[in-house]
């Protein structure tokens, strides 16, 4: 027997760690989806795309703004939020994240302006009463298209990976896995594709997003397997705690049913049938992917604090 008795009632750590609530999974999910939207819209060539696909680059700043709102609500010292931008700490993933978020706004907006149709550009110019400024931004974007697309892919990947590193840089057994970075990136790309697939689009665009979604889901399944193997091989009490989470404990049922089955295997199969038989796509698969992506982050954030 080895029993540890402790009488302590410190806020946020006793009787168990509870520092991060609903705000964090919401932010991680929206941030991942924004990363996916950036990577996919930058990868898609500019070939008379349909309306919603053209507007996809603007999803990133909108989703990020909502996510950062949630992040702000989580801060215990909200008035000091500006402190994130008075320092850069290379050793802190959160500091990297704060600066990456700032870089995403101009880069994603430039890609958005680049993709707008001439009539949309006119409309926006009139609404903002700055048609000339917008026209010069468009010209700048056209001259630097390659750079802007590369920056969207680069910053999108950085954002996607960072949402995972945020958890994995801690000392908690469930979080302390380098796999979380690529896992959250793959899940973010899949969520970005699912978001696009909610809207009407041309067949070839649909194929593009479905291909990416299926590839991302496949990679995600593989990464989840590696992640679980990592947890299963942690020894000692930490290992017991980690195994407890997904291989027999409190979070096992929601993890396997909501994330693996409902969020990955079922939508993957639906897409497979859809493409093999040439069926008309429904919203079922993308909605399931989005729910699964959210469940993944929700469960990981809570399981890490159990």
């Amino acid at each position: 027997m080895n029993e540890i008795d402790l009488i302590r009632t410190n806020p946020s750590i006793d009787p168990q760690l509870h520092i991060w609530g609903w705000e964090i999974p919401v932010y991680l999910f929206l941030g991942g989806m924004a990363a996916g939207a950036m990577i996919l819209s930058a990868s898609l060539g500019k070939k008379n795309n349909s309306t919603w696909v053209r507007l996809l680059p603007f999803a990133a700043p909108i989703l990020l703004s909502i996510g950062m709102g949630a992040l702000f609500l989580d801060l215990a010292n909200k008035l000091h939020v500006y402190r994130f931008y008075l320092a850069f700490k290379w050793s802190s993933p959160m500091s990297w994240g704060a600066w990456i978020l700032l870089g995403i706004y101009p880069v994603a907006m430039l890609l958005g302006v680049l993709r707008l149709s001439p009539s949309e550009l006119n409309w926006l110019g009139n609404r903002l009463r700055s048609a000339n400024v917008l026209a010069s931004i468009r010209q700048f974007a056209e001259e630097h298209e390659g750079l802007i697309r590369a920056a969207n892919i680069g910053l999108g990947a950085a954002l996607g990976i960072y949402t995972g590193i945020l958890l994995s840089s801690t000392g908690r057994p469930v979080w302390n896995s380098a796999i979380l970075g690529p896992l959250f990136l793959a899940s973010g790309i899949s969520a970005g594709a699912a978001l696009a697939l909610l809207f009407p689009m041309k067949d070839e665009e649909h194929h593009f997003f479905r291909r990416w979604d299926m590839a991302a889901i496949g990679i995600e399944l593989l990464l989840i397997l590696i992640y679980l193997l990592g947890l299963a091989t942690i020894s000692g009490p930490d290992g017991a705690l980690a195994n407890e989470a997904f291989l027999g404990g409190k979070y096992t049922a929601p993890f396997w049913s909501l994330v693996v089955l409902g969020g990955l295997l079922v939508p993957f199969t639906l897409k497979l049938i859809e493409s093999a038989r040439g069926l008309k796509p429904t919203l079922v698969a993308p909605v399931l992917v989005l729910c699964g992506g959210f469940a993944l982050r929700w469960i990981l954030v809570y399981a890490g604090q159990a």
Partner: protein
Amino acid sequence: MIFGEKKRYVMTVDTKRCVGCNSCVIACKQENRLPPGATRDWIVTETQGIFPALSQEIRSERCNHCSKSPCVSACPTGASYVSTGGIVLVNHDKCTGCKACIAACPYEARYVHPKGHVDKCTFCIHRVQKGGLPACVETCPTKALRFGDLNDSESEVARLLSSREWKTLNPGTGARPNVYFLI
């Protein structure tokens, strides 16, 4: 001590002397005016063995002021920093309450103060700078707690650590804690 030599403040906790009376906890709460329900140090009782062959160790625990502190690395604003003699402190003005340091700390030594910033043991740096001792050390009725500069070979902590067997908590984290438990 040679003038200008770098100090390395450490604490030793004699588990053979500690009776778990909680004096250190109360002294700290009063000295540092901590909010109700919060403590910067606490008593842990660890019981090992199979009845009736049981052994018990009582420890007064607190922030380990690690030499490679994960909390300082995780802090995005520089609010958590290493001060004189290796003491790890939180600058309340810079703290956003993001809690990255709490997630990073392997010892659960930090908590969120009701005012919004993160709070933890300071080794009573305000007393140490005036030549005093941390409140917990000064009050300890069994003299289980000792504090001093490990770089000074004449200091009591240096002598205790060279003559007694000791351990640190969770050494596997690689954080290099500076609170030593004499066993």
